[in-house]
């Protein structure tokens, strides 16, 4: 597909870009390992006092941690850099260049930058996830695997759409970068299953800042907790939010190019 082809080209350029910085690969690995170690040590402290956290057993939590890093890696790899760059481009007018290219501007703007080092987070997360699954020893049914993949995809689409809506606000407001920070901070809450949070916080993490769909929901799919309601909500949410993001983007572009409403 054309989008994938373009993405590959942009990704290659991003790799070259980051290589130009000569960021030490080992330092990056060290940092991710440290983060992972911290997570696991924290879990060890918690689980020294209990066998189950809100119904989640140690290996299930481990899977959640893996997903947290995995999705964090996806966000850091291709969602955050593009959206951040988009806000800058709107502000300094370099979006004009994107708009004179014969490709869909939303596509170009979304894939224009990739932070290659986030791949480390992604792979580490995957590693932890696999380790957790091995330890759980309860076999995974094909249905669970499919549900997990679907929920992971839906979660990524939801997060992408959410970020795009926020980034598109820069067509109307200045200094929108701070808004993107909201997701970063609230994503920290995604380390833990959102079922343990009080109702109001659960609501916020599901419907206001969709962290729940990024981490907990895929983890639920993997650990056999996924209810049909949640499954449906995630899928509908992904489609709905994606369409909404497209709408906001289109409206934003019209505003940027001075089209009458």
């Amino acid at each position: 597909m054309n989008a994938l082809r373009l993405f590959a080209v942009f990704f290659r350029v991003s790799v070259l870009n980051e290589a130009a910085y000569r960021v030490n690969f080992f330092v990056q690995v060290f940092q991710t390992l440290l983060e992972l170690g911290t997570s696991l040590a924290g879990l060890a402290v918690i689980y020294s006092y209990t066998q189950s956290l809100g119904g989640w057993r140690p290996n299930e939590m481990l899977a959640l941690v893996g997903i947290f890093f995995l999705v964090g890696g996806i966000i850091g790899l291709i969602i955050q850099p593009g959206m951040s760059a988009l806000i800058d481009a709107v502000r300094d007018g370099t979006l004009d260049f994107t708009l004179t290219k014969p490709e869909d501007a939303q596509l170009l703007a979304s894939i224009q930058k990739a932070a290659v080092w986030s791949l480390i987070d992604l792979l580490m997360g995957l590693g932890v996830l696999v380790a957790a699954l091995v330890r759980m020893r309860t076999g995974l049914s094909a249905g669970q695997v499919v549900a997990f993949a679907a929920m992971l995809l839906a979660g990524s689409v939801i997060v992408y759409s959410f970020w795009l809506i926020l980034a598109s606000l820069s067509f109307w407001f200045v200094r929108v970068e701070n808004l993107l920070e909201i997701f970063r901070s609230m994503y920290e809450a995604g380390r833990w299953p959102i079922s343990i949070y009080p109702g109001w916080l659960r609501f916020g993490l599901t419907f206001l800042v969709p962290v729940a769909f990024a981490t907990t929901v895929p983890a639920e799919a993997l650990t056999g907790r996924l209810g049909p309601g949640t499954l449906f909500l995630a899928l509908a949410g992904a489609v709905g939010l994606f369409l909404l993001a497209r709408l906001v983007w289109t409206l934003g572009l019209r505003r940027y190019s001075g089209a009458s409403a």
Partner: protein
Amino acid sequence: MNTLYELRDLGKLYAQQLRTTFATMVQYRASLIIWTISAVLEPLVYLVVWTTVSNGSGGSVGSYTAGGFAAYYIVLMLVNQATYTWIMYEYEYRVRQGSLSFSLLRPVHPIHADIADNLSSKLVTLPLLLGAALVLGLLFRPSAVLQPWAIAAFLPALVLAFLLRFLVEWTLALAAFWTTRVSAFNQVYFVLMLFLSGQLAPLALFPGWLQTVAFVLPFRWMVGFPVELALGRLGPLQAVEGLGMQAAWLGLSLLLVRFVWKRGVRVYSAVGA
């Protein structure tokens, strides 16, 4: 030089910085709200996690009930707010931009401007966090044994904690003189803080050997100690011990700051601003 004169100049500097910071923060209203969210969220998450553990373990973990955890994390949020700094990021930026040269040219030691900026920002954000603390208090029903003498001792402990943490983190910020990998440094520090200052869990819940380690290191004295004191979880002897440790570490950090700063300026000037 007349010391009184110096002090008055210092006072004026702090007042001026307060005005500047206030004006800047008013501009960045939106980021203040967002910042408040993250400042509240972290202790809130741990509060909920430990409450969940507590509820699943027969109502308490160690000497902490759900109410105890609520009190702990609400006070922790406020103490953390009072003592935290962002100075490492500042210095990384300043060294990269070369704007540090300006600070070096001033007759006053740059640390004063930084302290002033830190305090002024907190004055602005304090009402927001007090509001948040109030809301959390209503939502989670904290419980603590308040003792007048402990509350009285809390204030000096808090001041010492602030100074200690500021000096340590300011010294850490100077790493920017020597390396561009400041984020790796900072991360190690944050991890140590997370575990050993009482943020991940009240230190009383750690195994004995870890508590001893935490006693010797400075991190507890930056955050956890004032919190434990305020909540009436320490006896008078422990309080005195704690204040003593704070003072000792403060003295040590003063020496460290002087040492590192001198060296750092030499390195910075050698490279050429």
